[in-house]
């Protein structure tokens, strides 16, 4: 079975999605176990796959037995080996966390919801492991289509923002498809590794340059890179609780991964960083994006919306760090994909719990939460500290690499933007902590303040939500402690040897 790991990651959830959707029409109780079992199987195979990749450096799986340029191959190396583990882990943990939310929100469409959820995870996982440029487009569309529908069913605004997201997302995906077409017309192949082998003789071809620009533009739209981020805050703020923990952490990060994959192993680093003189401009856009995202986060009163602007800034971190073009910057960027997925998951899990308990999404509604649910808040503090970048949490380490990459490249504006954004994040989170710690809890806002603090009964989130939340929060610290190993044992091999 071991040689089938790359296929198992994709195929088991796909079959389970069919089973879950059918079970929704037959007996709803089976949906959840099917979904959890399939995502767990997917997660376990991705962990084993990562283990194998560490040993043998590269695993290739030929679909239908056809070799590389003829058929579609899955190619897993250290880079996507790491990302696939993150993707499957986030999908699994969030599914367990959101069981009760799904039962509450979609009682009569549960089977369909689970099927869409699993298909979304399958699409993202497939995007990560595939080695074929066109296959990536198909999987991207699966992830997008299911994503739109997972977003579109809550309150009034959710449908409008999902429709806007659909239109923007389709522009992005179609640009990517067009870019692949330009590559195909110049090289005649769709296999990523083979395109890269042609790249040395092709680097002055106009089609390839155009392909690079179009692909990058499409991916920037999809990942909400500044100034193309307009769709993200609205789309994510109004997404249902169960979906947001899946969509927000993964969509942007997987797209960033694809950008890294395209730049490093399709267009080759030589071409991406030297022949095309765009990296400077992209880093500048990233700097503006980080500053603008942080400032806009500061202006928000709704905490979910605030988190979405933090995502915009974080995308700036990863893109900027990558296009610095040196080893430290790229390592930081890759490490930040993993860290940020977990950090964002922690934030939105907390947001989901808060939204259930306080029936409001304003920061001012969070009064006295430390007394009401101390355990939840403790984990939330951990997530906040990680976003700010306080040492033993993982957020510190990826920021450390990004900053040292900036210093190495001599780009002090990038370093400045990172520090500025950390400062803003500190302000943001301590503002929340202050409201939640010092101001007394009140059921109905405005009066009843005189009753004092003692009246508040501890009312924690249900264990089904709290345990997954704690798993994520603790893994933030564990990831931080082991990030040195992660860099030397995995990410080091993910970056081509030519980059110093």
């Amino acid at each position, binding site marked *: 079975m071991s040689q*089938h790991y790359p*296929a198992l990651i994709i*195929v088991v959830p*796909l*079959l389970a999605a*069919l*089973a879950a*959707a*059918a079970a929704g*029409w037959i007996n709803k109780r089976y949906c959840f176990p099917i979904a959890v079992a399939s995502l767990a199987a997917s997660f376990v195979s991705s962990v084993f796959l990562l283990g194998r990749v560490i040993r043998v450096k590269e695993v290739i*799986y*030929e*679909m*239908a*037995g*056809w070799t590389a*340029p*003829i*058929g*579609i191959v899955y190619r897993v190396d250290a880079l996507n080996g790491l990302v696939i583990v993150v993707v499957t882990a986030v999908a699994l943990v969030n599914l367990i966390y959101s069981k009760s939310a799904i039962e509450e929100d979609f009682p*009569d*469409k549960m089977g*369909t*919801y689970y*099927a*869409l959820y699993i*298909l979304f995870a*399958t699409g993202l996982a*497939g995007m990560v492991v595939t080695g*074929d440029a*066109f*296959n990536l487009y*198909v*999987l991207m*569309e*699966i992830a997008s*289509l*299911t994503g*739109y*529908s997972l977003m*579109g*069913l809550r309150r009034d605004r959710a*449908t409008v923002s999902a429709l806007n997201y659909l239109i923007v997302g389709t522009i992005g995906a179609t640009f990517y498809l067009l870019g692949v077409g*330009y590559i*195909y*017309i*110049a*090289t*005649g*192949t*769709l296999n990523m590794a083979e395109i890269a082998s042609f790249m040395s003789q092709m680097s002055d*071809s*106009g*089609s390839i340059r*155009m392909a690079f620009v179009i692909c990058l533009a499409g991916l920037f739209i999809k990942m909400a890179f500044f100034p193309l981020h307009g769709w993200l805050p609205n789309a994510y703020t109004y997404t249902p609780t169960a979906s947001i923990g899946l969509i927000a952490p993964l969509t942007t990060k997987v797209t960033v991964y694809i950008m890294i994959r395209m730049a490093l192993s399709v267009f080759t680093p030589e071409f991406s960083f030297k022949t095309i003189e765009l990296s400077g401009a992209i880093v500048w856009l990233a700097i503006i994006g980080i500053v603008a995202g942080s400032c806009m986060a500061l202006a928000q009163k709704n905490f979910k919306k605030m988190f979405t602007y933090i995502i915009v800034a974080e995308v700036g971190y990863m893109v900027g760090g990558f296009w610095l073009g040196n080893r430290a910057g790229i390592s930081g960027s890759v490490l930040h994909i993993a860290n940020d997925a977990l950090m964002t998951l922690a934030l939105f899990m907390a947001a989901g719990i808060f939204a259930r308990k306080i029936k409001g999404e304003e920061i001012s509604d969070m009064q006295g939460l430390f007394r009401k649910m101390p355990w939840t808040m403790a984990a939330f503090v951990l997530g906040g500290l990680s976003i700010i970048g306080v040492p033993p949490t993982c957020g510190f380490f990826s920021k450390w690499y990004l900053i040292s990459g900036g210093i190495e490249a001599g780009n002090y504006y990038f370093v400045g933007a990172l520090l500025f954004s950390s400062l803003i994040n500190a302000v943001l989170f301590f503002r929340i902590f202050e409201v939640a710690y010092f101001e007394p809890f009140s059921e109905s806002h405005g009066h009843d303040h005189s009753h004092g603090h003692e009246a508040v009964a501890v009312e924690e989130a249900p264990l089904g939500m709290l345990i997954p939340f704690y798993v994520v929060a603790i893994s933030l610290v564990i990831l931080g402690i082991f990030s040195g190993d992660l860099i030397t044992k995995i990410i080091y091999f993910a970056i081509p040897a030519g980059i110093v």
Partner: protein
Amino acid sequence: MKKLGLLTVVVCGVLLLLKTAEFADWGDPNSPASRHLSPYFLENSIKDSAVPNVVTAVLADYRGFDTMFETTVILAAGLACFFILRVRKTEKPKSTYYRHVPTATTLRIIEGAVLPEQSKVFKRIDSVWVPFDLILATTCKAIIPFIQIFALYVIAHGHHSPGGGFQGGVVLGASIILMAISRNLGAAIAHLKEKTTVLMAMIGVFIYAGTGAFAALAGKNFLDYSTLATVLGVDEIMARSHGILIVETGVAIAVMAVMVWIYYNLSSAGKQDEGL
């Protein structure tokens, strides 16, 4: 917004237009796209899988994995439309309409009144009144079986002629949609229930993915149809050919079901009582 749009469009357009000069001329047989990979497919499709229609061979065999996800995309769209639109509890309409067929008169029955039984004489019609057209209804009724037979031909003959599971499936779905348009939605749903379409969609994708999983269980790579050789009792080349037919059938079932399913939900805004 309008000016911004125009500006974006003009800039993108000029950029793209300028770069078209770099392309190989239209119809150039020596462009890299025609020289590198495609000759392999053209020269080997008969040798590998005995399928003269190279598009089918590449679609279902060499790049079969793409096609599996193509089917999944369609399934995802069906699930998404259902998820977004479908409403289960609908309030009963204030009044219902019936047609007395022999005299072609329309009856409006208000709430609380006794409803006539559905029979050959009284037929329930949509409240958005569609004029009864005998020619249209009869022609469509006569033509639908032929459309369906043609669809089956397209599916089965995809190896040798243009067509295949996808096109055949859409034609098959279109025949049901035609029935829904020419009569009413209720008539189509009476023939093909929503639950049936859903299960058919799942089964269709399952046939595809299951064939692939069978190959993986039998020890070869996922979707390698040559593993079917032992089961079907033929050599590996014919096994591939038959494997293509099997997965095309799966595609056809799934696509047909999902097209109908999407139509049911879209045309009635998820209520599935009456539409178009």
